[in-house]
């Protein structure tokens, strides 16, 4: 019987622990326990039989760790272990379902670990293909603790088999997975990406899972699976025991069924007895019916955003159009400014962050790849992928550890044909633009026609209209004075007659006009009155922010701590944000005010030459700060803030000179690297910031850098100074190797070393020229070795 048909009949039962029964039988495994499929097949078969006899509809193959990494050096291939595992189960329980078990890879995804998306995908794919070949009926991905890894495994199953797939994750006491995802986000994301059931396993005892099941139940249309441990583990002299007996376990499981769990089983510490008793207890129990419609919501890996309370703010600042610094950063493959913009906007109240990386000379896929990977797990606001190229959008949705918005699809057939399948596959929400091949329609009726066409077309892909945000398109008032009325009237209809949710790239209205903030803010207020739900706008603009805050107040949808009364209650505080910094550039740098330093530099550039600004303001400011630090008047955090402020000012200068095609005095290159095997790089990064701002061109090779890469860095940059960092004694060995190679290949290159375990003596011993005890010292050393 098919999995979906079985579910219509009531509760379904999976099995319990494999490990606990192996321990009971006194069977120990050398290496990964899945090898027992070959060395102890009879014991594994007996366990499957026992679970089937106790009432499990599905037994789970003994293949949890049967992946490329965990079987390395075992002498067995993934295919051999999985074929054996599925074969044993099938033979043991011919009339029951066989669920291919897939556990985590055991490695961390980057940026935290070294494993890439594609490497993880290939690991899972190999398992899936083996399972399909061996004849599994279903795939269960379980005990996942990183939502991204669970999503990758899910995609590997969906794209390499037709089997139904169930995904469970394990949660900490705080109700989140190790990587920080709450239960609603987990269920919502996994459903969006095609799971057939979602749930929770391992973690704790059943009682602690109740709120997690409730949270999942609220957001998913899928059946929920629970496989808790038999309580908490207790280690007694080398063996493990769990504290819930069958009698304790069963009533707690019944509560989980009441909360919405339809598929039940066990994890660590449970046995066939538990499953049998559970099934008997629930024999008369009917599963709680699940919701039938997908919610109008999106999520990051840590938080949901629901499109039911408005206004929501979609921050538009990550867009290189008209932003020279951001564009340059993207062209150079740097994401630092975009990351900063993302967090600044969230701080200013943005609920969703639009990410547009399009620009001449930008490798869009590469920037999305590095930006999304970095923001996954840290940025609480969900992302909106702002791009029109199908392959770029697809990759961005794929590597995102949540459910994004896609900006956008329009009424052109080619747009719908390419974007709608992506939204369907990854469960993304969509911005629908009221334009088609003929351009932006001039009348309200025509715009509404386009919207209807898009929404109808989407039904073919099972995309419900609740998954849309419609943008009726704002034109610049400077070029089209009546245009705004068509926009607002169309939106009124789309929202109030058609019942769709609305968005608007509202800032376009002021394009080409002065005091854009003022116009944007007023226009937003008008748009809210006509039914705007979620403007795409700049939350850092004062008037825009005010318009949003006031609408939120009137609607009664204010955010805690940011209510109208709190923010505007005291008349004086309303102007605090717009207070101007009165000091000069030097003061801004000394105080470490980055934004102000950049603003002042722009101002100075109107009257002074770039080189003058560097020589007469930036360098003297940094020298003054350095002196204060040397005298102990300020400390490292302040020195770093000043350096960051100066860095911002330098960036502004750089953009200006590119425009004017003048050149600054050339900077001397310095190569920096944290040596191979070492991942601690904060010290090296502090040195980099300092050197950069005291006039050096830093070639930062990153962490865990091989000797070959260091040699290559020296070769390509022509640097005469290399800084190497290591924190551990064990990694000083690889530092020594790099030093030897450098001395052989580039005897005239100076080598400076630093890091917790190093000292001048130690530096001498491993052949380095000089030991830099801190970042300030590193600058002095560079000055001494390179400039004198």
């Amino acid at each position, binding site marked *: 019987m098919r999995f979906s048909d079985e579910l219509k009949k009531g509760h379904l039962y999976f099995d319990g622990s494999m490990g606990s029964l192996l321990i009971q039988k006194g069977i120990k495994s050398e290496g990964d326990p899945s090898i027992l499929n070959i060395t102890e097949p009879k014991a594994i078969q007996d366990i499957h039989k026992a679970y089937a006899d106790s009432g499990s509809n599905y037994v789970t193959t003994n293949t949890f760790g049967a992946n490329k990494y965990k079987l390395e050096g075992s002498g067995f291939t993934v295919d051999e272990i999985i074929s054996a595992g599925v074969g044993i189960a099938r033979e043991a329980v011919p009339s029951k379902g066989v669920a291919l078990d897939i556990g985590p890879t*055991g*490695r*961390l995804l980057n*940026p*935290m*670990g*070294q494993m890439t998306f594609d490497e993880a995908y290939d690991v899972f794919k190999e398992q899936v293909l083996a399972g399909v070949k061996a004849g599994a009926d279903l795939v269960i991905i379980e*005990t996942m*603790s*990183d939502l991204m890894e669970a999503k990758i495994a899910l995609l590997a199953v969906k794209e390499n088999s037709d089997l139904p797939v169930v995904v469970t994750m*394990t949660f*900490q*006491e*705080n109700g*989140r997975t*190790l*990587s*920080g995802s709450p239960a609603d986000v987990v269920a919502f994301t996994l459903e969006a990406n095609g799971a057939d059931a979602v749930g929770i396993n*391992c973690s704790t005892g059943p009682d602690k899972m109740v709120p997690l099941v409730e949270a999942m139940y609220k957001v998913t249309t899928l059946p929920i699976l629970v496989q808790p441990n038999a309580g908490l583990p207790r*280690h007694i*002299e*080398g063996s493990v025991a769990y504290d819930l007996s069958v009698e304790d376990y069963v009533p707690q499981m019944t509560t989980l069924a009441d909360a919405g769990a339809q598929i039940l089983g066990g994890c660590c510490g449970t046995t066939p007895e538990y499953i049998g008793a559970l099934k008997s207890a629930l024999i008369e129990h009917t599963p709680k019916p699940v919701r039938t419609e997908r919610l109008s919501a999106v999520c990051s890996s840590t938080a949901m955003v629901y499109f039911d309370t408005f206004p929501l703010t979609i921050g538009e600042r990550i867009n290189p159009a008209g932003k020279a610094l951001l564009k340059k950063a993207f062209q150079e493959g740097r*994401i*630092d400014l975009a*990351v*900063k913009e993302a*967090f600044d906007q969230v701080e200013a109240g943005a609920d969703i962050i639009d990410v547009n990386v399009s620009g001449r000379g930008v490798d869009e896929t590469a920037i999305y790849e590095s930006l999304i990977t*970095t*923001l996954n*797990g*840290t940025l609480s606001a969900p992302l909106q992928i702002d791009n029109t190229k199908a392959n770029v959008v697809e990759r961005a949705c794929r590597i995102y550890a949540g459910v994004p918005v896609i900006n956008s699809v329009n009424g052109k057939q080619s747009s719908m044909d390419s974007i709608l399948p992506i939204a369907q596959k990854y469960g993304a929400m969509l911005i629908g633009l009221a334009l088609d091949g003929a351009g932006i329609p001039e009348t309200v009726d025509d715009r509404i026609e386009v919207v209807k066409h898009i929404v109808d077309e989407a039904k073919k892909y099972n995309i419900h209209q609740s998954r849309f945000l419609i943008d009726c398109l704002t034109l610049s008032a400077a070029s089209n004075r009546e245009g705004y009325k068509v926009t607002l009237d169309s939106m009124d209809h789309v929202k109030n007659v058609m019942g769709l949710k609305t968005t608007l790239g509202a800032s376009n209205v002021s394009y080409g006009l002065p005091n854009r903030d003022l116009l944007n803010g007023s226009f937003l207020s008008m748009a809210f009155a006509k039914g705007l739900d979620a403007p795409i706008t700049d939350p850092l603009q004062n008037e825009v922010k005010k318009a949003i805050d006031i609408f939120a107040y009137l609607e009664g949808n204010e955010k805690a701590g940011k209510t109208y009364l709190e923010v505007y209650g005291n008349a004086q505080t309303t102007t605090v944000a717009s207070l101007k910094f009165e000091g000069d550039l030097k003061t801004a740098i000394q105080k*470490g005010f980055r934004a102000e330093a950049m603003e002042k530099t722009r101002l100075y550039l109107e009257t002074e030459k770039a080189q003058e600004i560097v020589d007469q303001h930036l360098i003297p400011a940094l020298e003054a700060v350095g002196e204060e630090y040397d005298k*102990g008047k300020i*400390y*490292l*955090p*302040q020195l*770093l*803030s000043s*350096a*960051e402020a100066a860095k911002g000012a330098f960036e502004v200068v750089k953009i200006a000179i590119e425009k004017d095609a003048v050149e600054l005095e050339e900077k001397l290159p310095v190569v920096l690297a944290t040596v191979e*095997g*070492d*991942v*601690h*790089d*904060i010290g090296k*990064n*502090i040195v980099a*910031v300092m050197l950069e701002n005291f006039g050096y061109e830093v070639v930062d090779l990153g962490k*865990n850098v091989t000797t070959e890469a260091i040699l290559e860095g020296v070769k390509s940059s022509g640097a005469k100074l290399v800084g190497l960092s290591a924190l*551990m*004694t*064990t*990694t000083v060995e690889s530092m020594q190797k790099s030093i030897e190679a450098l001395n052989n290949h580039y005897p005239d290159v100076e080598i400076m070393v630093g890091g*917790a*375990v190093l*000292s001048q003596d130690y530096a001498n011993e491993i052949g380095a020229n000089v030991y830099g005890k801190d970042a300030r010292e590193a600058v002095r050393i560079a000055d001494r070795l390179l400039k004198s």
Partner: protein
Amino acid sequence: MSYKRIKNQIIEAITGEQGMHLTDTLDNELEALIDEVKSLSTFSPVSRQSTCTHNLSEGRIEVDSLVFESKSLARYIEGANSCIIMAATLGPRIESRMNILQLTDMSKAYLFDLVCLHYLEYCLDEWERTIRDQLEKESLHVSGRFSPGYGDLKLELQKQVLKYLDAQKRVGIELTQNNLMIPQKSVTAILGVSPNPFNRSYSRCDACLKRDNCKSRGGKHCAFQ
């Protein structure tokens, strides 16, 4: 939560002296960062206690399947008849936040790193105190924490220790090929348990590589392993 203690230690780490005052701005920033670290971290140690065999002259301790060949550990827990093996981490969200801060604000990243170090040490001390209190009721004494990498206790042992505790699955600590833990703000340690008080004259500072040029001698707020 003893903010004051953590804050004072951090200020001392920044200024190099005791009892200094930073600017109000920095002071506020530190307090906000302590709050942030507290809310992002998932400190929840895993530990196992088991009897051990202890050979001082050979420098060999055996606990279940684990074998520690280390004269410094043997001396540090001299007299122990059982050991507590533990692992703990501030968790992956701390690590991710750290990566972000290094991209956006190096000054804050530096402070955040310091806060994490001292907060972890604080949590470990608190955990150790509850263990000590529990075992005291059974008239047992507990040594301090001794970690792989201290003295001659090889860092390579991390692998067996983490496996013994099932720490990858239970708290999410993984190892790089060079035996460094990820998340970086993680600790494994061995503590001795004995019916007799431990000899405190041999401290873990005596086994430390930095003992000749250490500013925080006495382990009061040592953040170095």
